[in-house]
């Protein structure tokens, strides 16, 4: 990915992220978060993670943000009043965030991580076709020989080949989540709620 594009997308992601943290109106915050997630999805695609980028847009910028907006509008939440701002949480929040960024920047600059660029860690599609091992399905090797990255196919293979059990646990988690939401949102008969 060109440097300019990286900086532009990072600016979109971080700028809208900043507006989420500072915004007064919850609807504005939710829309800024959707924009931030879209920028992040573009960063993913720039990292050759096409499947994850599309999933990011579908799940986060689509489903999750619609859920947030739906709840905000259902509860009819007004913008916060400016007068009862407390100084202590804001100062501590900013302080912790700044310390964290400084720490990460120090770690990143002190290790050899910054030396890794797309140029010196290139993807070798056609060479990789011969080294796939169990993943050497015709559909994957043909794509690799054509020089395209069969991103979704390889993630699917990894998931179902190595993480089949984990995938079923995640399915169970979603089921439990669904049941939990139904139980939580049901009004008790004659209850005070």
């Amino acid at each position: 990915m060109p440097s300019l594009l990286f900086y532009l997308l990072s600016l979109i992601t971080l700028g809208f992220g900043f507006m989420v943290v500072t915004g007064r109106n919850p609807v504005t915050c939710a829309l800024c978060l959707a924009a931030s997630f879209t920028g992040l999805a573009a960063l993913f695609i720039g990292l050759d993670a096409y499947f994850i980028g599309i999933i990011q847009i579908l799940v986060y910028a689509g489903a999750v943000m619609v859920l947030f907006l739906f709840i905000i509008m259902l509860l009819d939440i007004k913008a916060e009043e400016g007068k009862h701002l407390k100084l202590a949480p804001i100062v501590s929040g900013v302080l912790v965030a700044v310390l964290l960024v400084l720490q990460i920047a120090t770690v990143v600059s002190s290790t050899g991580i910054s030396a890794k660029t797309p140029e010196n860690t290139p993807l070798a599609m056609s060479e990789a076709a011969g080294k796939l091992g169990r993943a050497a399905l015709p559909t994957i090797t043909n794509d690799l020989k054509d020089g395209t990255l069969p991103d979704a196919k390889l993630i699917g293979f990894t998931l179902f080949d190595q993480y089949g059990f984990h995938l079923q646990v995640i399915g169970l988690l979603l089921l439990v989540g669904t049941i939990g939401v139904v139980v939580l949102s049901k009004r008790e008969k004659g209850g005070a709620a």
Partner: protein
Amino acid sequence: MISLGHYLVVSGILFALGLAGVIARRNIIIVYMCLEMMLSAANLALVGFSRFHPVNGLPDYTAQSLVFFTITVAAAEVAVGLAIIVALFRTKQSVDVESVTKLQG
């Protein structure tokens, strides 16, 4: 030249923004949005590591499988969390985190 370090710093800043929001904001829905932001920041670091540590000339798809699982867990967490917020709003008529003090010692 864009290196892995750049992506990690962007991920770190996004995580710190989310953390600052979780600590400083008092609207529980915005606290939740900031939590989502922190999860996404972790995903960015994972995808960055996946791309810059190729296995046999391909990105490390173990990391991207982990991102897939993270996104699923985040979606389930949002659904349950928002249901809790709705239940909370029904009893307190407020989404301010300081209106919930029943467990305070």
